[in-house]
């Protein structure tokens, strides 16, 4: 049961590519611009063509195959399908067909597909950002972007540190989960069959040790940080300071133009 034998959602893939070399702030701002445009422009199908082409272009630039990017977004498909179904059932309009008491409308179908596509593209671009940015760079970038908000009392450093720790421990916890699952499978546990209740019950031997390990690790990490005199962001220097260069500015401008193009095309076509 190779639980971890594929790329997981948001897993960092080290590579020597143009996208990897960009400043994390450029990538965070870029993905925010893309997400905004995806939610603003969705009346016509044309912006999706642009974003699909852009995603393919990004794959080529980041030296990560399209297949791998798509495989890593597989866990999000459940959420997308759920969104489509919810929209499908609860929109009023011209009835297309009826299953028992559930009426499927044309408006519902369109809204479901639109919402599903929006959500999928959102996940796709966020995933590509995380695949090309190490967790440390990502939190450094977010901290830097949040720094102006410090004067309004936003704890930028603490927020970034929390994010770093959370992101850093995701692969470790996945590995632990995999190990515990395998250990219980080796003792005859049946984690794959039966209904939801049976499966949830079967997962107790995995969840209990996992929680124990999580709390142990959190405790150990807190002690290790204290032992190394961690006292928040005050007076803290950086080993790798961020550098905003011309290529970051050009890349962000290009992404903004593409986003704007998507919105304009959407308004024009609809």
């Amino acid at each position, binding site marked *: 049961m190779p639980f971890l034998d594929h790329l997981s959602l948001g897993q960092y893939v080290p*590579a020597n590519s143009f996208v990897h070399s960009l400043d994390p702030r450029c990538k965070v701002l870029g993905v925010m611009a893309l997400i905004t445009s995806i939610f603003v422009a969705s009346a016509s199908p044309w912006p999706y063509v642009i974003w699909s082409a852009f995603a393919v272009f990004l794959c080529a630039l980041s030296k990560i195959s399209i297949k791998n990017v798509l495989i890593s977004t597989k866990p999000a498909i459940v959420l997308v399908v759920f969104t489509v179904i919810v929209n499908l059932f609860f929109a009023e309009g011209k009835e297309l067909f009826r299953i028992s008491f559930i009426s499927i409308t044309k408006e519902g179908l369109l809204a479901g597909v639109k919402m599903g596509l929006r959500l999928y593209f959102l996940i796709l671009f966020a995933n590509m950002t995380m695949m090309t940015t190490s967790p440390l760079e990502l939190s450094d970038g977010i901290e830097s972007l949040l720094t102006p908000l410090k004067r309004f009392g936003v704890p930028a450093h603490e927020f970034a540190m929390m994010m770093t720790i959370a992101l850093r421990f995701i692969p470790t916890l996945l590995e*632990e989960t995999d190990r515990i699952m*395998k250990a219980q499978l*080796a*003792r*005859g546990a049946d984690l794959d069959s039966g209904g939801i209740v049976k499966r949830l019950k079967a997962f107790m031997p995995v969840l209990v040790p996992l929680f124990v390990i999580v709390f142990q690790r959190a405790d150990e990490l807190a002690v290790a940080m204290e032992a190394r005199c961690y006292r928040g962001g005050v007076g803290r220097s950086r080993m790798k300071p961020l550098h905003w260069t011309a290529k970051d500015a050009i890349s962000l401008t290009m992404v903004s133009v593409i986003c704007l193009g998507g919105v304009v095309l959407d308004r024009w076509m609809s």
Partner: protein
Amino acid sequence: MSLEVCNVSYTYHKDTPLETKSLNDVSFHVEPGEWVAVVGHTGSGKTTLAQMLNGLIFPSSGEVIVDGLKLYPKAPHLKSVRRKVGLAFQYPEHQLFAETVLDELMFAPRNFGMPEDEAMAHIKKILKAFELDEKILLKNPFDLSGGQKRKVALASIVVMKPVYLVLDEPTAGLDWKGQEMLLSMLKTFKDNGTGIIQITHDIEMVLDNCDKLLVLEDGRRRSWGPPAHVVEELADRPAKGLVFPDVLEMSLSLRRAGLNVSLTWSEEKLVKDIEKEVFSCPS
């Protein structure tokens, strides 16, 4: 009856940028009542191999056959093979979850459909072998000491009455006394007919106990056979990350210096050989 590993290879994250070949064309076999030690450096593929023996992962190529049954995904005999091949991961105490030690020990027998009274009788025997008091059965496993937790975790695997017992670094984190106790217990299991597959990076610990040694290097089989044969084979070019015992290193140095001593890790034997050499020298 044997556990056969035939030309197995395994690749993690196949067809992704994180692709890593963990095992490459490895073969060996274990009979019941035989002790095989798998040694190698960190990342040599030892743990991957251990997981394959229990059908937790399946080879990218090659075969694992347990008593004539080939392992493959969703094989109908997978559960019965998992009962035959007990697998203890490194730090097995991390898998404890039940409210009482009794529930923990009954977990595997219940999963494998072993009758309760038969399991209970076996648990009592196992507790004795692990030098644990029966009173421990009602305790919460999380309240036990580190050494007791390790014993309970191992007991929860042995309770399945496995024909083969695979142990991934079973002595990790134990003190010298704990290691001695565990090794002597494994000897008892071996004498009772259980095939032992011990995975370790410490060759010194297993040289005296094991019948055969499999040395892995970068996922490949570097050497395989009885300890004396393996040591002879590795004498000129030791395997990566493998540290020979001091006595063995000394016997190697003496041989290189021209003395006729046997390649041994036994202190007494080396002393005898040196004495023989010294006294046979013409004065």
